[in-house]
């Protein structure tokens, strides 16, 4: 470690510095075939088996645009609120063994989608500069040496991924906190899943995030030198990488130095970023319009048809639930992210208490398979709970049964022998307990607020134990209060 390397242990950045982050997210489109040829869009097969003259860039081969990929890209553009307009493909020229043609066919000055925005769960807005279509490269494995291209003994190239359709979503540098960066990626993933254009799995590489990070003094609106972080493999890893990089910049500025504009490699294991290529000696990509493809010119009707079939997006779904309940943004986000909002809405419509429905879903339906839980059984369960027919503990148990095997909540409660213990039966048990624990009862009746609270917890626990959880918490509290007076 050199002297300017920071250590990451503090949870937040120093107050006087503000984080400035823009994210570039590469999304693999879930098409059947590659972007320019008929090869299967499938990476998990033997190396160099999903290849043909086109994606191997053989002399004379020509690309043909995958119409489905264009449709998906436009759909994503519209989902991000972008203007989707006429666009052209361009060649980005650079030499690298995994680039079969030694140029990447991408979009440059006329991307498919521009000027959108992504609204995060807490209402923060991140501008989308552009979302453009491009082809993926192959995958290189450098063997021997330091595992990098120029000291390897030999390198292996697998072109199965070459030509896989991507959309690169480029945000504006509008992100100010690590939490927002994470929320942005999560939100984008939710949108991709909602519109069904990608499986959006960061760990499998179908969604890849590069982060452009800089810092500036709070109150300033300047954009200082940024570094682009690559090799980020998860949302958590992104958070660490951004934090590390921001601290590195702050330390440099504190030492009277400044970061260089460069691409840096995030080392997840080492918890640090290492310098990659400097932007000053970066390639000149010599972009020009791809002469082998014709411009993409979606008609107004095509764009209108995309809009007409657009599903309700996560932000709108959260807003809808928010209107019906007082649930926190976190609860709304969780329920929508899991796709349980439809279930919740139907249960609420059937008369169940909205807040209770959402709380139960968030806390007690954190499972992968909840297909057996119907909105009517959920509504009935919540109603039983709010009316006092079931205690909270009982309701949770019945809910677990419903998730496991479905059925009617009243019948399940009956089978389990759940009935709310009230009135004399409960009072008898309470009286016995008070008699058995006179010291505790004295602390309840004459102690300070803290004592009273502790002892209420003690007695409630004892009563629950004695009634095997069939007593209602509120009834116990009322009973204890009445007896104390």
């Amino acid at each position, binding site marked *: 470690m050199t002297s300017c390397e920071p250590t990451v242990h503090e949870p937040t950045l120093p107050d006087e510095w503000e984080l400035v982050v823009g994210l570039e997210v590469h999304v693999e489109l879930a098409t059947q075939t590659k972007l320019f040829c008929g090869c299967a869009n499938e990476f998990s097969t033997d190396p160099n088996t999903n290849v043909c*003259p086109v994606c*191997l*860039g*053989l*002399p*004379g*081969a*020509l*690309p*043909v*645009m995958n119409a489905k990929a264009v449709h998906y890209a436009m759909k994503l553009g519209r989902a991000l609120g972008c203007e989707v307009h006429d666009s052209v493909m361009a*060649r980005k*020229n650079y*030499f690298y*063994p995994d680039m*079969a*043609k*030694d*140029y990447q066919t991408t979009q440059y000055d006329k991307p498919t989608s521009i000027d959108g925005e992504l609204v995060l769960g807490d209402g923060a807005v991140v501008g989308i500069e552009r979302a453009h279509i491009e082809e993926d490269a192959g995958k290189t494995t450098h063997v021997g040496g330091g595992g990098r*291209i*120029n000291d390897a003994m030999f*390198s292996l*190239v697998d072109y199965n991924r070459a030509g896989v359709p991507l959309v690169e979503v480029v945000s504006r540098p509008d992100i100010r906190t690590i939490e927002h960066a994470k929320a942005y990626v999560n939100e984008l993933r939710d949108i991709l899943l909602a519109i069904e254009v990608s499986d959006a799995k960061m760990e499998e590489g179908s969604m890849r995030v590069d982060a452009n990070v800089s810092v500036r003094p709070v109150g300033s609106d300047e954009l200082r030198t940024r570094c682009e972080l690559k090799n980020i493999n998860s949302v958590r890893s992104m958070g660490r990488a951004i934090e590390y990089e921001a601290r590195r910049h702050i330390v440099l500025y504190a030492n009277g130095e400044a970061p260089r504009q460069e691409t840096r490699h995030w080392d997840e294991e080492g918890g640090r970023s290492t310098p990659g290529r400097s932007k000053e000696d970066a390639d*000149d990509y*010599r*972009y*020009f319009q791809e*002469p*082998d*493809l*014709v411009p993409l010119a979606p008609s107004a009707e095509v764009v209108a048809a995309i809009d007409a079939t657009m599903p309700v997006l996560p932000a709108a779904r959260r807003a809808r639930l928010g209107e019906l309940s007082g649930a926190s943004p976190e609860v709304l986000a969780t329920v929508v992210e899991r796709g349980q909002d439809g279930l919740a809405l139907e249960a609420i419509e059937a008369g169940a208490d909205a807040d209770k429905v959402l709380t139960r879903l968030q806390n007690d339906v954190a499972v992968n398979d909840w297909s057996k839980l119907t909105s009517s059984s959920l509504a009935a369960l919540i109603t039983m709970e709010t009316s006092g027919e079931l205690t909270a503990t009982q309701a949770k148990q019945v809910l677990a049964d419903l998730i496991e095997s479905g059925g009617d909540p009243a019948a399940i409660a009956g089978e389990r022998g759940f009935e709310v213990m009230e009135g004399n039966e409960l009072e008898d048990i309470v009286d016995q307990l008070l008699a058995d624990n006179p010291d505790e009862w004295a602390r309840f009746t004459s102690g300070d607020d803290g004592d009273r609270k502790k002892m209420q917890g003690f007695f409630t626990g004892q009563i629950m134990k004695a009634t095997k959880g069939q007593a209602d918490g509120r009834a116990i509290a009322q009973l204890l209060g009445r007896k104390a007076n």
Partner: protein
Amino acid sequence: MSARSIAADVASGARSAASVLDEHLARVAEREDEIHAFNLVTEDKARAQADAVDALVAAGEPLGPLAGVPLALKDNMCTRGIPTTCSSKILEGWRPPYDATVVSRLADAGAVFVGKTNLDEFAMGSSTENSAFGPTRNPLDTGRVPGGSSGGSAAAVAADFAPLAIGSDTGGSIRQPAAFCGIVGMKPTYGAVSRYGLIAFGSSLDQFGPFAANVADAAALFDVIAGHDPLDSTSITDFTPNAVDHLDRGVEGLRVGVVRELSGGAGSVDGLSADVLARTNEAIEALAAAGAKVEEVSVPSATLGLSAYYIVAPAEASSNLARYDGVRYGLRVDAATTGEMNTATRTAGFGAEVKRRIMLGTYALSAGYYDAFYGKALKVRTMMLRDFASVYENYDVLVTPTAPTTAFPFGERSADPMTMYVNDVCTIPSNLTGHPGISVPFGVGDDGLPVGVQVLAPALGDGLTFQVGAVLEAAANGGDAS
């Protein structure tokens, strides 16, 4: 013997495809050492194809329109399992795993592939002197070049190694060698013929096209190779070639413009020789005599074509030729690192002219220079399209010489690239605009070597070029013009 007569004889059983092939291979054996039209004579392939045709004839099966007709393929056309070199060391030994669409169509039509013809490396040149495997000689005078870049294909037809050949034309590479070798060569409308399997030089300019000893054969060949191909995104979707139908239509009432900037009129480009201009004028008179309305027209931007072309074509080439990096196929010169291997391979594998154009094109696209060079060239291209479009509002076809001179001696222009580039001044505009053009022999120059006259038409006017070409050919053969 014409390709059509051969096809008719083979179909009728008057001659076998095998015997036709033998006659042509005998001429190859006799003169190929001297001419060097071919990089590879594909005798085994040709015999198999000829035998297959003869078997179909014997069985009474239906035949393709070119059944049994020998044909030469330019060596920048991908042929499955057959070496395809672009006359470059960098591709030496590479065997494509697929056929170009044009090659498939010709095979389906029953053509017999005699060989792969020599060219200027990657089609960059106008004399076939830039081949890594040695130059091709003009069969009419072996001290002279056959033109280029499709010099091998033109020479193969001129020497009657095959009655038909395919070339590619990026700036005149079919029409100029046709003129130099005294045969017919035609560049189709951009998108009329599939580029799938054409090893790219300038992707927005390249087109395959036919060579033949006469206009009617060239038309028949065009009709076989043209038409939509879903593998080429720039292929025109609704185009049905019908060149043969145009052959007998004559030029009565046709409006013919003579482009004065390319024909020695006011404001003309320099370097057009007097004998070439004289033959061009006689051709124009012949068209008038046949009933065409002939007038001089001005297309001012036509003179800018050469400059724009030598930005656009090298720029595209610099990108198209990047893939020859030693990683996947062709030549590899080992070195310590990947980057050094790329450099060593490309240094050893490419010839001087190819390197020159890669450097030109790389420079023209570089940050800070794009607007001044590539951007400006695109503007010239737009301007030329507009100017030609407005001329075609009043004229059906345009006439110019094909090349400024007749075939020149070896070495005369190879020392100075600029004098070589000027060869294409009359042919380049139609590559930049994507319009069709044909070169038809019309008499000879002072040196006794053939002169070619060029007929240009607007996009999709391919049939018209053959229609007017047929009239010029008849006049030239009738002897009243030269």
